[in-house]
């Protein structure tokens, strides 16, 4: 009788663990849908936030990355190791910064079971022509996406310095299997201070 209860407990634990494994990857999708239902969803709010009329009045004190098309507005993390990726979008050390031009490279986890769960989960929603902004040391820089590509993880040239001021965002792709890297390149449109 006692063993029957233990067995029931074990069965519940098995179901809970497997539900967690199966359901958690879809949590960001649900959150995105929830935040963007109706006309004034988060994406629309963020799009408004990076418009010139708004941006000059509301430059945050911290370094931030705002990408409306993937509903992202998070502080940019600086750190020497990949461990920083667990805190949010990580500015790759040794690459440029927006104030210096060239190629600023920012990476993010596509999906993890623990927080931040999916920093760049919706990177595939970013399309050519979309706008995004980087707030860097009390200045705002807006960029227009000029290319999206999928490259193997051996292609480190995506981090190379460039003649024009650019931001490169990248993450793993496909979503469930970090086989390649999805790379988004944006060129500088405007600077605000």
């Amino acid at each position: 009788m006692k063993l029957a209860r233990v067995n029931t407990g074990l069965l519940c634990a098995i179901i809970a663990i497997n539900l967690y494994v199966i359901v958690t990857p879809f949590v960001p999708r649900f959150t995105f849908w929830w935040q963007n239902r109706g006309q004034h969803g988060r994406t629309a709010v963020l799009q408004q936030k990076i418009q010139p009329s708004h941006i000059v009045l509301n430059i945050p004190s911290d370094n931030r990355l705002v990408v409306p098309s993937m509903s992202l507005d998070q502080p940019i993390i600086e750190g020497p190791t990949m461990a920083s990726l667990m805190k949010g979008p990580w500015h790759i050390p040794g690459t440029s910064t927006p104030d210096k031009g060239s190629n600023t490279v920012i990476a993010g986890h596509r999906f993890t079971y623990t927080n931040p769960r999916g920093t760049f989960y919706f990177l595939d929603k970013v399309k050519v022509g979309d706008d995004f902004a980087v707030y860097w040391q009390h200045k705002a820089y807006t960029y227009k996406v000029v290319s999206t590509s999928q490259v193997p993880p051996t292609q480190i040239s995506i981090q190379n310095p460039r003649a024009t001021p650019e931001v490169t965002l990248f993450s793993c792709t496909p979503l469930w299997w970090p086989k390649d890297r999805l790379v988004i390149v944006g060129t500088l449109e405007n600077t605000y201070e």
Partner: protein
Amino acid sequence: MSEKVQFWVLLTLLLVSAAFLVFVNHYMQNAPLFK
């Protein structure tokens, strides 16, 4: 199936499930950015 056999089958399944969760979590977090 006796309760004792059920117990060992369920315990094994629980351990396999937990190990799978740890594996996928570790794999997702530690995939190298560049190889």
